[in-house]
Structures are given as structure tokens and as C-alpha cells.
């Protein structure tokens, strides 16, 4: 079990009830879609996993560590086991592809030699070979998201969290991004992807947790198990 949510509820200070008694577990190496309309609570699940927010009620364990009881100074080290991909890519515009990826290594204290070795590997892995020195503005949306994914996996996280990674991309480009995420998952990384794009989920034969108004309304964990 790499992720465990036990009866988690989250009410924001402004009174919005984002999650209501949510429980689920993820196994190491799983690929899970988090489905639901906007406002269903997908983003809150992700924020709780990253310890950007703490639950109002309930317990969360990631790699058997209690996220709720974690001390403030442990948070940075805890987050290093996760990589995050965003809908709007969140690339640094004044840095090249290489620099954007190296940035993630640098901030966790990687040395120059390590960075010089690892960054080209990852660029090749996401299919951007030869574009190392381009700036984000010189790349297409799909290519920018590939940089975002490269940055998320460069530190070899156990869990890759993707928050609507295809939200800003057309369907063909999205399929390419999905293939990349599946590849990463096949290499052993647990992937949790929030989306409301039904067409991506439909034929994936992956586990889908569907949220609506802060509650889990379906989780096809068992069904997938049978199908495989």
C-alpha cells in the first residue's frame, strides 16, 4: 500500500466542503484515474497528498507515513518521493528545457555532475531529444507538457501526480501524453491522474475513482482486477 486515505473530510476555512468521508488505497505500481466534474474534490485529494492542505478529519498515509502528523521540517523530504505534473505546465519561461528540468534536481541538492548526466537521459525519455536548449515559448503545448513530465520524474519519484495534464491539449496530443504516462507507470512508478476527459479513460482498462460533490461515487478497482 503506497497511498491510504481513511475517512478523509476536508472543509476549507471559507466553509466549502471539498471532501466528505473519502477512503481509498493505492498499491505500488498502480495507475489510477481520478474522475469527476470540476468542484468534485479531485484537486483537494492531490493537495492533501502533497501536504499542501491537511484534512479536517481522517488519516492519510503515504508510504506508511502519516501525512497529518508530519512535522513541518519533514515536509520537503516527504515531497521528494512525489512528482507533480500540472494542467498549465508551470514551466519557468526564462529557463531552457534543460534548465527547467535541472531546476528540480538542483533544489533538492543534486550535484552538477549528477545533473549533467541525468537531465539528457530524461529529455530523451520524454521524446524531446535535440530540444534541450529551447525555451518553453519555442515549444508546442504537448512538448511543454513533456518538459513538465520530465521535471516531475527526474528525481525518480515513487508516485507521479498529474493534475489534468491534458486539460490544455487537443485529443491527439493528449493521447501522446497518455502513452508517456503509461510508459512511466510500466517502469514502476505509481501514477495518479486527475481528469474529466472521459474519452481518455474509457478504453484504458485502468482503475477509475469517480468523485462527485466530495464523495467517491464509484471505484472500479475490483472490476479492473477481473478484466485483467
Amino acid at each position, binding site marked *: 500500500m503506497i497511498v491510504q486515505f481513511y475517512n478523509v473530510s476536508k472543509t476549507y476555512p471559507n466553509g466549502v466542503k471539498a471532501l466528505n468521508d473519502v477512503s481509498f488505497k493505492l498499491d505500488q505500481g498502480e495507475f489510477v484515474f481520478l474522475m469527476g466534474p470540476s468542484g468534485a474534490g479531485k484537486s483537494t485529494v492531490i493537495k492533501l497528498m*502533497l501536504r*499542501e492542505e491537511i484534512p479536517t478529519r481522517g488519516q492519510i498515509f503515504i508510504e506508511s507515513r502519516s501525512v497529518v502528523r508530519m512535522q513541518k*521540517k519533514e515536509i*520537503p*523530504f*516527504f*515531497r*521528494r518521493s512525489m512528482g*507533480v505534473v500540472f494542467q498549465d505546465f*508551470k514551466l*519557468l519561461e*526564462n529557463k531552457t528545457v534543460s534548465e527547467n528540468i535541472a*531546476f*528540480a534536481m*538542483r*533544489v*533538492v*541538492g543534486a*550535484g552538477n555532475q549528477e545533473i549533467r548526466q541525468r537531465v539528457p537521459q530524461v529529455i530523451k525519455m520524454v521524446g524531446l531529444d535535440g530540444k534541450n536548449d529551447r525555451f518553453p515559448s519555442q515549444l508546442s503545448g504537448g512538448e511543454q507538457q513533456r518538459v513538465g513530465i520530465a*521535471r516531475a520524474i527526474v*528525481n525518480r519519484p515513487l508516485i507521479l501526480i498529474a493534475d489534468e495534464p491534458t486539460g490544455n491539449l487537443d485529443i491527439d496530443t493528449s493521447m501522446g501524453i497518455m502513452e508517456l504516462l503509461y510508459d512511466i507507470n510500466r517502469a514502476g512508478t505509481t501514477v495518479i491522474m486527475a481528469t474529466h476527459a472521459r474519452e481518455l479513460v474509457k478504453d484504458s482498462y485502468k482503475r477509475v475513482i469517480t468523485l462527485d460533490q466530495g464523495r467517491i461515487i464509484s471505484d472500479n478497482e475490483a472490476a479492473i482486477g477481473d478484466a485483467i
Partner: protein
Amino acid sequence: MFKNFGYFIREAGTSLSRNRLLSIATISTIAICIFILGVALLLTLNANRFIDQLESDLEIMVFVDQELDEDETADLGDLLESTPGVQSVEFIPRDKALEGLEDKFRSEKYTLRDTVGKDNPLPDSFSVKAEQPHEVVKIAQEIEKMPGVYKVNYGKEMVERLFSVTKLVRIISMVLILLLAFAAVFLIATTIRLAVFSRRKEIYLMKLVGATDWFIRWPFFLEGIILGLVGSLIAIGLLVLAYGSLLQNIQNAIFFIPLIEDSKMLTGVYLSLLGTGAVLGVAGTWFSLNRFLDV
């Protein structure tokens, strides 16, 4: 920290040049603040020195009881010399005191000696100097109680007024310096706050990737320190030029006020201004980060 020092410096430099206009504005303001601080400091130091000099001229006049004979007077002199806090004792015999008075009141028609006749009305006296100017009052009171002392005169009002002036000068410059320091800290805090704002995406990413608080903070502290140091260096440069030309051109005109020329002391002043610049930079950054960087 040291492994990443180069990275931090680069980040700070990038941020400074990215917000070039604001950086220049902040540096200028810090320079002005530190310059005024320096002027106030030099003024205070020179004023203190001037006052010290005035104070050290203060003496206690001890008038000896007329009934004492020569030996007893000498004993009193020894007693005065052995009083703690006394620097020097000078005996002024009554005849000499009269001569002094005569010099002061000399007129062509008649002498003082004619007026007072054969009897010199003046007593023998001692001129006593204290080691520390502020001990004058205490020592004078002690001497007053000694046997054979007729009267003690130490320019009570003069001493007290001098001390109140010194105190006022010190208070005013302290207040001025504090106000300026606040202004400088506020400006640095604003610059850092904008730097944090313009890099909020980067900071957010750093947090999510797992950068420690200090890894995120260091570039901002360096930025604040650089702002403080560059600003104070400019101010110090101006001060060195201004004070140097003051010494060269004006000292002769105001010879009675001895300006500080001791290069060791001036270097001390300039270094402390540089240190102040750096401290202001750190303080401003600290303020800003605590309020605007929720890590």
C-alpha cells in the same frame, strides 16, 4: 549551503537584474539612508569629542581655610592627590592668585594691590582635575567635606549644562538614526516582497519538488544583503570624499573644533556603516519572508 552557494548567488543576481529599476531605487535609498546615518555618526563623534575636550578642561577650585599653616596646607594637598578619581592637583599660593587677579583687572590709574592695601584677601587654593569629567561633581562634594577646606568651586551650572547638551545631542542622533534605519528596512522589505512576488511560481515549484525552507530563503537573503552592501558602499564612498574635502578645506577655518582625523577611527566608522547596510538587508528580508513566503 556551501555546495549551493554559487547557485544562490546566481539566483540573487538574476532576481536583482530582473527587477533592475526597483533594485536601483532601493540601492539609492539605502545609500541615502546610510549616508545620512554616516553624517549623523560623524557629527555625533565629532561633537562628543569636542564636548569631551571641553569637559576635560573643567577644574575644581579648592580654597584653603586661611587659618591653615604651610604644613597643614601641604597635607591637604597630599590628601587631595590621594583622593580616588583625581588626576592632578596644582597648588596656587595666594600671592600668585592675587597677581592673576591683578593681571585681569589692571588699570592705568591704580593697581589692585593699592586698593586692597597690604592685606591679601585671597586664600591659598588648589586647582584639581578629575580623571573622568562626569566625576567632577562627586569629587567636588567629597572635597567640600575635608577639614581645612574653606570653599569649593567647580562651575556647577557649567558642568550640568554641558552634560544636558551632550545628552540631547546623543538622544537626537539616536532618534534620527533609528528612523532612518526603519525607512531602510521598510524599503528592503518591499523590494524583497516584490522579488518574492515575481518568483512566486518558482517558489511554489521549489516547495512541491521538496526544496527545504532555507534553500528557498537563501537567494532572497543574499539579495537583501547585496542591496544593503552596495547601497552602503556608495554611501561610504560619498562620505569618504565629503569628509576628506571637509578636513582639507574647512579645518583651518574652524580650528577651534578639532575634527577627527584618526584614520583608524574613521575606518571603524565606515566598516560599521557597511555592517549596518548588511544588517539592514538581512532585517528587511527577514520581515518580508516571514510575511510573504509561506513555506
